[in-house]
């Protein structure tokens, strides 16, 4: 029975190291793919019309500020417990996310403000010419549809 704790702690430690290797490989893969362009971030702070969005930029900054603060503070703790997130910080993130959501709603409620969406070329381009109604093929009638 005295052997069991040693074996279990050894297995736990091994699992921890395996997870560390997995997480490190995942992080390295993400960073390498970003640098090689397999993960594109060129529209990270863009609105629907291709213009940069201040609310997205703000949410990005706050996410990094809070995340870095959290992990820096974990290092200062001696009890090994994760720090509690105060109510004010949650409210701050809520305000930031709400501003982003409202801005996104306004952008998408204006079809005329919606510029061209990138179609894989990566460019934002200018406004696309309108498609005449005659150029749009009629949709096939559903079976059983009544005129």
């Amino acid at each position: 029975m005295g052997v069991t704790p040693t074996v279990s702690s050894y297995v736990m430690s091994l699992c921890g190291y395996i997870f560390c290797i997995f997480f490190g490989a995942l992080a390295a893969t993400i960073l390498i793919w970003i640098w090689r362009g397999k993960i594109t971030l060129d529209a990270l702070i863009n609105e629907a019309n291709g213009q940069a969005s201040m609310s997205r930029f703000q949410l990005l900054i706050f996410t990094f500020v809070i995340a870095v603060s959290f992990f820096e503070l974990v290092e200062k703790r001696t009890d090994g417990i994760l720090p509690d997130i105060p109510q004010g910080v949650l409210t701050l993130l809520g305000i930031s996310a709400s501003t982003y959501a409202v801005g996104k709603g306004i952008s998408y409620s204006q079809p005329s403000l919606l510029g061209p969406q990138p179609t894989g070329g990566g460019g934002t381009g200018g406004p696309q010419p309108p498609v005449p109604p005659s150029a749009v093929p009629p949709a096939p009638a559903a079976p059983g549809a009544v005129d």
Partner: protein
Amino acid sequence: MTVTRLLHLEVLALLYALAATIFFQILTRRIQSAGLLSQSGAAGEVSPGRVQLLLATIAMSATYLTQVANATNGKMPDVNVNWLYLFGGSGSIYALEKAWVAWNQRKNR
């Protein structure tokens, strides 16, 4: 080195590397930041609502990071309620200005 310490360093390294990558890509214009401070649909016109939101964001972030740097007990510092009012007002001004511009463009169409 313990597993928790290793994992902690990995997460911090990922966060800092990701932040540096995004900052570098913004500087080299791979991440498009054109029009960050301009009004929608009005090329070149600086929007006061966006400028004040940027200033509020920078001020808030700098204040909070200073508090974190000065924290010695490992507790996350709380945000002062006055800062929250300021920040809520700033976000509201930005959203109202955006809605006003969108409404005017729809009316003039």
